[in-house]
């Protein structure tokens, strides 16, 4: 893994999503000495997935270090650091293990600016691998972005390509507010996802979606690892003569509503794909926005393809997670219902 040391380099490099994240941290730690990275096993081991590899070696144990096994402590201290003027990047080993820190995230990080009338701020990035797809079963697979999306004061970001991963992570580090940076671990090293990433400084602004694929008949909204699934389904639909548009919001909060609404107004149909359990998932929020603001354009029901309303299983993971079959069926449903 080659890291970018300064913002001055240019050109493109081919990277996995994981390498792009690593590159982003190398870049920002070199750019700004307020940036520190910490969490469980992020130092010498370089993270259980290897995302923080080389950071401790390069920037020393003061700027990249291991913590005791306490997510509450990781986020509590990160909040204190951010308030005091640092730019902490706190790694939570798996999103499933973030809950001991939930209070510090929703009661503290999210509210410090507001409750102090803007006197204090909390520019903090919480990175966590999210979602299924690695046979992690019950507790290494969950997608709980909806909890954070429902928490005013937090921004919520999830990339689906290496270039976005780097650009969004740098934008998150530079953001003046707390950002939940959720990483689709299923595609960390996916070679189909591997792609070109600008070297050096590269920013993808928060709050702007990406049109993954243009189409005219039906809009798919998907993020993280589900973008892949949506693309596969779109290709299969294309074979049946359906022209599918895919939107990846990239930032879930604040959401790029105009991009989604514009697309739905054009296509008249919408399917939202999301790994999380159906009830209360962020897919519902997007469906609700469409039902509120674009109802007159709709030519069919707003469909959701999601995880099921069960905890995450181990053996049957492949059936639990939305796949192209299910997305395709939902697309068809918006035509024939």
């Amino acid at each position, binding site marked *: 893994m080659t890291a970018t040391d300064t913002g001055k380099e240019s050109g493109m490099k081919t990277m996995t999503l994981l390498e792009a994240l690593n590159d982003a941290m190398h870049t920002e730690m070199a750019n700004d000495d307020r940036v520190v990275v910490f969490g469980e096993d992020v130092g010498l081991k370089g993270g259980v997935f290897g995302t923080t590899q080389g950071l401790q070696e390069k920037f020393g144990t003061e700027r990249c270090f291991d913590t005791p096994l306490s997510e509450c*402590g990781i986020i509590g201290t990160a909040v204190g650091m951010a*308030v005091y003027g640092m730019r902490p990047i706190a790694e939570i080993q798996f999103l499933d293990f973030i809950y001991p820190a939930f209070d510090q995230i929703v009661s503290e990080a999210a509210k410090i600016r507001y409750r102090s009338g803007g006197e204090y701020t909390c520019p903090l990035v919480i990175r966590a691998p999210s979602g299924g797809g690695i046979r992690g079963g019950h507790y290494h697979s969950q997608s709980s972005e909806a909890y954070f999306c429902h928490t005013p004061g937090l921004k919520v970001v999830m990339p689906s390509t290496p270039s976005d991963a780097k650009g969004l992570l740098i934008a998150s580090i530079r953001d003046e507010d707390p950002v939940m940076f959720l990483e689709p671990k299923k595609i960390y090293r996916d070679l189909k996802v591997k792609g070109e990433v600008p070297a050096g400084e590269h920013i993808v602004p928060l709050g702007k979606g990406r049109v993954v694929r243009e189409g005219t008949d039906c809009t798919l909204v998907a993020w993280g690892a589900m973008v892949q699934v949506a693309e596969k389904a779109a290709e299969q639909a294309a074979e049946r003569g359906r022209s599918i548009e895919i939107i990846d919001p990239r930032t879930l909060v604040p959401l790029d509503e105009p991009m989604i609404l514009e697309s739905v107004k054009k296509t008249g149909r919408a399917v939202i794909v999301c790994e999380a359990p159906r009830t209360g998932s962020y897919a519902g929020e997007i469906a609700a926005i469409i039902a509120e603001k674009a109802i007159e354009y709709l030519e069919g029901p707003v469909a959701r393809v999601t995880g099921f309303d069960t905890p995450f299983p181990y053996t049957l993971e492949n059936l639990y997670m939305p796949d192209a079959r299910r997305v395709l069926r939902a697309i068809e449903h918006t035509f024939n219902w």
Partner: protein
Amino acid sequence: MTKALTIIENDGKAAKGKDPNLSAEQLEKLYRTMVTTRVMDERALALQRQGRIGFYLMSTGQEASHLGSAFALQDSDWLFPAYRQPGILLLRGADLDDVVNEWFGNAGDLCKGRQMPVHYSMRSINFFSISSPIGTQISQATGAAMAAKIRKEDTVFMTFMGDGGTSSNDFHCGLNFAGVYKSPVVFVCENNQWAISVPVEQQTASETIAAKAQAYGMPGVRVDGNDILAVYRVCREAVERARQGEGPTLVETVTYRIGSHSSSDDASRYRDQAEWERWKERDPIQRFQRYLKHKKIWSEELEKDATESAKESINAAIKRAEERAEPSIDSMFDDVYMNTTPQLDEQRESLASLEGPAEEEQGAFPL
């Protein structure tokens, strides 16, 4: 059980060799701040009783405990307070208007009317924004201290919690991280014997709160929390240790919550009158007065002047505060993020375009 350090003896003398030898000026400042804190608490509770503010929470009986600790800091050191250390605002020279506006949540409130009374935030004096959830400030103080250490600054951090706060998640991780990283932070637990209606014996089976320090590899010190010199002395040492890079300390100030938990609580329903009376006799201001008398600093005039000028300035601030308007409706949508979002703009406009008066029905705050 470790005996708590005491300095001021019954006759007002300092225990031999223990007097921190503060200057007359320093002593007078401490005394005046204690008195002002007490007066402020009384005035504010009265305001609450009159329905002029919605809620209040007193520190009566704990003035020595929180003022003695904070006095051990330099002005550049940071505080991560709980909600029962209002005197520190005065000690650090806060503008009384800033304090009083917060009770009213008016347009002048630094918090812009977003938090209940007593949840101050005062960046100008390095006083961090107070939160209601018990304990969260503890690990934050550790984090800020870790940051200062990484930056090689010599700032020291002091955070406060109640005896109830020692049961929180953040007590555990905050002290544990501070021990591991040897962070320059002083943890002050004001053990006032009660967490609302739960006595400290039901809070923990630990013999003392100070004893909990051992679990984190740091010193734990127990001090008479109604003796401002003892509190100062112990915290002074802890602050120096922190500043020298020797790591954190847990200080337990043994004191008592003289009032009810808050303006919504009635402690007589669960607390023993005799216990209350015992503690009432150990009033920290009177205790300090005896010392000052012995030192020939206290006089009736001083007391009168301290009390009267406190009343006057607080009353004036209240008068000004009551004349101020509410925060603007628009302001409700500010400070969620540094910049607004399209969603917030839409919601702000939707509220602004609403016709007719808002409704005015509310229940009562119980706590």
